């Protein structure tokens, strides 16, 4: 069950001809798939693609009605491999994942798919996680498309263009027997907009028909000599077919302008940014009218040489707006112009940065620099040197640089992963630092304050594999982390099997929180929940033992910090050969709250007895040293100033968002911090007998408290008899 329910969005997928769809980009793509008669969809979650997977997962009834098969793939490789169904059969298939991490994982299958070629349209939707908010290495999918001869679409970032790109993509794929990659940037995926819908189409040829009438053609299998023929076919037949289709269907667009002597060539995804920058320079308006001609590449691979040559011919200078590095497109355009002896000056990465996101400021500066060089007369004095006072020069603003704290992501309130790293920090204090190989997932937040644990991250499910070299006799062992998501993605073989086979005696901590949490709480093989459409409940310990690990410990309550610490110490001191695997399992608190809180509220409203634990700090006892926070970082454990004039420093305080996970108390105990923490169990709808007992108890306790208060000089007046 995913973190966000899309049940209310599902009905948008049923909109018919002429109705207006309003919603997020990623949902628009989903709707476009159904309008295109897709036969099967697969994919692997991860921002910005998760919502596509989640909404499909919530829309399974609708998919079944339409005859669309949906797989929640085990990995991007599995998703890409599923496109094999389109090699021999005229079935449209689509897969989605985040790029470039997903394309990396999928590249084996993608390369094979591209070599074989397809009969049915095959669409690879990649959420390009680049720029602000990205969580991965900054690379481009472009290289994957080029190396495998996959066509790359990069539509203008508005819903109608994106939807059209999905429809065009399938046709292009079929017309050229080549898989097509549709690149959508992170902001476009989460863009709210609208488009006019069409009716959904059931697939023309079904998977069932394919299964019952299998076909094969040895020339489509990647093995010599077919593989040599396939490479030639890519160049001799598929590429020209694609170019012809792109040209005839005008997939790329020209927005002409009066200033014919210059021009801008932009990736489709850059279009809105280019127009906005031109608008700020007084050369375009909000409706897309532009003085400077723009050639928009909705297809960024292959380039259409004739179109580019035609656009550049007669122009003094063109600017290529191509985000990211290397400058594949700019180089290709240079080559086109040179070979055709077109003397248009080529600008691009000389005025725009080679690396990094083309934000609004970057785009404005780049275009201004280009125009200042190529057509200085076009810029008004104001546009050339804006006279607006820069707020950044204000000393009061500059002072903020030292004030505003960085605020990266972190573990949620009550996260079960927090105590694992608290325990690791305690072990570090006792035994010194270890080499810790981190992995991808929420647990990677351990590298940030307050934990500062983890040295490297090499890819999803590769944490323990990335410690493989540290398999030598030494005074310390390596520790590696892997989440349940990474474990099932490929970690079981790449990380655990690898360590077993190579007799690596490092410590491996598998963080099992019952979901793929970082991507939005999707279920996976070891999820505990009953999932109607998937098979869950397969324990990680069984898999680990099955692959040959002898030393396995399962901890079912990660909040037991002392046990977590002691188990880690035991693993670190064990001298048997082979990996020591600790499966630290507790449910993701975000998901748990989402599941349990409505039930709790309902029970309480129905008059049932329920106990809600939460934690607090006695401000009189707390001395404000914040040692507890350095072992927690929980959003609900914060600091506050007190009225006590004797206290210089703020004391710790727990706010009402506390979910009572117990980490504070456990840490205070395991780390021997201080006696400030208390657990308050609030009993809702207590039973009569319980109430009576409590009243008696409180009578005695209250009597003693008042007696002592009366004897005390400062409270002698305040305490009633």
């Amino acid at each position: 069950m995913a973190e966000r329910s899309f049940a209310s969005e599902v009905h948008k997928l049923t909109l018919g001809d002429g109705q207006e769809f309003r919603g997020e980009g990623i949902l628009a793509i989903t709707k476009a798939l159904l309008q295109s008669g897709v036969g099967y969809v697969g994919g692997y979650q991860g921002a910005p693609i998760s919502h596509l997977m989640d909404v499909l997962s919530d829309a399974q009834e609708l998919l079944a009605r339409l005859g669309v098969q949906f797989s929640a793939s085990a990995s991007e490789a599995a998703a890409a491999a599923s496109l094999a169904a389109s090699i021999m059969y005229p079935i449209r298939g689509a897969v989605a994942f985040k790029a470039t991490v997903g394309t990396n994982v999928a590249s084996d299958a993608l390369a094979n798919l591209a070599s074989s070629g397809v009969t049915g349209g095959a669409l690879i939707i990649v959420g390009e996680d680049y720029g602000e908010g990205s969580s991965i290495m900054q690379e481009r999918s472009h290289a994957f498309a080029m190396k495998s001869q996959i066509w790359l679409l990069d539509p203008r970032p508005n819903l109608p263009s994106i939807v059209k790109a999905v429809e065009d993509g399938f046709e292009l794929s079929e017309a050229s027997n080549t898989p097509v990659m549709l690149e959508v940037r992170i902001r476009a995926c989460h863009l709210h907009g609208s488009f006019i819908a069409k009716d959904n189409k059931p697939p023309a040829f079904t998977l069932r028909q394919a299964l019952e009438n299998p076909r094969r053609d040895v020339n489509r299998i990647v093995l010599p000599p077919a593989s040599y023929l396939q490479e030639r076919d890519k160049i001799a037949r598929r590429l020209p077919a694609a170019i012809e289709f792109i040209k005839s269907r005008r997939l790329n667009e020209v927005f002409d302008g009066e200033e014919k002597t210059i021009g801008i060539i932009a990736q489709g995804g850059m279009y809105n940014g280019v127009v906005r920058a031109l608008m700020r320079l007084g050369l375009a308006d909000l409706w897309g009218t532009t003085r400077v001609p723009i050639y928009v590449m909705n297809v960024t691979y292959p380039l259409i040489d004739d179109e580019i040559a035609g656009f550049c011919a007669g122009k003094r200078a063109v600017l290529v707006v191509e985000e990211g590095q290397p400058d594949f497109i700019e180089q290709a355009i240079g080559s086109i112009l040179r070979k055709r002896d077109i003397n248009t000056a080529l600008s691009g990465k000389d005025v725009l940065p080679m690396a990094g996101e083309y934000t609004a400021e970057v785009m404005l500066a780049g275009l201004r620099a280009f125009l200042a060089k190529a057509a200085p007369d076009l810029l008004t004095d104001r546009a050339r040197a804006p006279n607006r006072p820069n707020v950044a020069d204000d000393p009061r603003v500059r002072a903020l640089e030292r004030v505003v704290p960085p605020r990266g992501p972190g573990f949620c309130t009550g996260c079960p992963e927090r105590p694992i790293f608290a325990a690791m920090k305690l072990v570090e204090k006792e035994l010194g630092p270890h080499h810790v190989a981190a992995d991808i997932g929420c647990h990677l937040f351990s590298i940030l304050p307050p934990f500062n644990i983890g040295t490297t991250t090499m890819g999803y499910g590769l944490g323990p594999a990335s410690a493989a070299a540290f398999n030598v006799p030494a005074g310390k062992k390596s520790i590696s982390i892997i989440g349940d998501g990474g474990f099932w993605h490929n970690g079981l073989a790449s990380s655990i099997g690898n360590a077993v086979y190579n007799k690596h005696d490092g410590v491996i901590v598998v963080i099992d929180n019952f979901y793929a949490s970082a991507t939005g709480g999707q279920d996976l093989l070891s999820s505990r929940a009953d999932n109607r459409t998937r098979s869950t409940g397969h324990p990680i310990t069984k898999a680990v033992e099955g692959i040959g690990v002898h030393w396995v410990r399962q901890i079912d309550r990660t909040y037991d910090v002392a046990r977590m610490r002691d188990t880690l110490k035991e693993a670190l001191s064990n001298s048997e050969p082979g990996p020591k695997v600790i499966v630290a399992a507790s449910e993701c608190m975000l998901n748990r709250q989402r599941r349990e809180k409505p039930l709790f509220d309902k029970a309480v409203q129905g008059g049932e007895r329920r106990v809600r634990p939460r934690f607090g700090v006695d401000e009189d006892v707390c001395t404000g040293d914040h040692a507890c926070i350095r072992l927690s970082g929980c959003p609900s454990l914060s600091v506050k100033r007190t009225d006590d004039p004797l206290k210089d420093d703020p004391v710790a305080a727990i706010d009402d968002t506390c979910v009572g996970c117990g980490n504070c108390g456990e840490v205070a105990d395991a780390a021997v911090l201080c006696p400030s923490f208390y657990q308050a169990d609030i009993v809702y709808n207590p039973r009569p007998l319980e109430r009576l007992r409590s009243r008696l108890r409180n009578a005695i306790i209250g009597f003693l408290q008042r007696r002592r208060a009366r004897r005390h000089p400062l409270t002698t007046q305040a305490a009633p008899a």
Partner: protein
Amino acid sequence: MSTSSGRAPLDTTRPLSIAIMALGGQGGGVLVDWLVALCEANGWVAQASSVPGVAQRTGATVYYIETLSVPPAARGTLRPVLGLMAAAGEVDVVVAAEWMEAGRAILRGLVTPDRTTLIASTHRAYAVVEKQTPGDGIADPVAVFEAAKSCARRLIAFDMAAVAEETRSAISAVLFGAIAASKVLPFARESYEAVIRSAGIGVEASLRGFARGYERATLPLDRWQDERPAVRPALAPVGHAAFDALVARARDQFPAPCHDMLAAGLARVVDFQDVDYGRDYLDLLAGLLALDRSIGGEARGFALTRTAAKYVALAMAYDDVYRVAELKTRGSRFSRVRREVAAAPDQLLDITDYMHPRMDEIAGSLPAPLGRFIARRPRLFRALDRLVNRGRRVRTSRLGGFLLLYALAGLRRFRRGTLRHQTEMAHRDAWLARVREAAAKNYDLALELLACRRLVKGYSDTYSRGRSKFDRVMAAAKRLEERNDAAAWVRRLREAALRDEDGAALDGALKTVESFL
């Protein structure tokens, strides 16, 4: 000059741009959904974008909306090309769901005097780097206020978390009310409320929050108001003869500038032990006052005496087992816990205290000869430690747990004879001797040495680390004593010591000191 002259001028319509700065999990997405629905319901075109990614896990994140009115007739043919991200200098409305996020928007250049209305909540959700500092790492809110006043065309700011709590709604609802009141969008209030209603979740609470937010937004914020003005307790009688005599003595004997700190200090030490202990405290301070007078303290507003009143009280009211037991069993504590966890009157409350006494604390609590006997025998000490050193969860709200702590608290009358008391007093006296010695030569240095007491806090390991930092700063102070800038250096060392747990900053500062000594 302009080549474009003589051509049809470009349309100059601009969309209204709204940037929303929020923390992951704060409901920024809800606010965006409301705003988009509001604009669309009023016939405007709206485009919203965001980059949730990992930032949704408690990190800072920005949502962005562009919206404008497009005549219905033109909607099929005329589609605006809207931006996907906020650009410096191009934002009409910046909404910040937390005060430092308002600061971040200003730093990013999103708030400019020519066009930006800044609507921000002044409450704080402290970042980890602010919270984890051993000292006071809280960022200065006034700096953000000053910058906001200087950069925003209009500033609407108040504590929206408080309003949300008061109305049992969410900050997003209060912000939505403030946006409505700001009139940055030309829509009627009813239209906003209709959007909340049609969203269908928590409607009543959201409408309450919206209404209060709307009201509050109309009050100007001209001056930054500290949420907690400094408390200055009065030296006043409480109705207990012996204590009131001490109060009278303090008022007579000490100059007025010291009275507030003396009131706080006297109350603390008497609360810690008894009236006699309060007398000891005043005796000690009387001695320091005499010294203060003799070295021209009057001209300094008796800063030495006032500072000593604060830190001597802290040194005398140290945190031992008896003190903790006492604080945990008080009636006032029970009612405070009820308040803090917001338990309703008809709900029962069980309190469990997390304690972890070690042999160190136990030995300290024993009569000094016995404590010392054990402390001097490491093997015995370790054996006993194995016996006692474990986490103990005491159910203070149940009779068993309560009586245990209550009885323990009652033993405080024997405190003066404990090993811990003797150690603490010896430490206090050595420290004050150093202060006295320095005072004669360098008044400011004496003040700084007094303030070094701030380093001694926490329990067990944290306490030991604090003590060790204290000792290192005091040792360095000794070597700096003859220099004119000794006070400034001691302050720097103390501040460095409070910056991180392991004392890395202090090590660095000490190295600097070494370099010129």
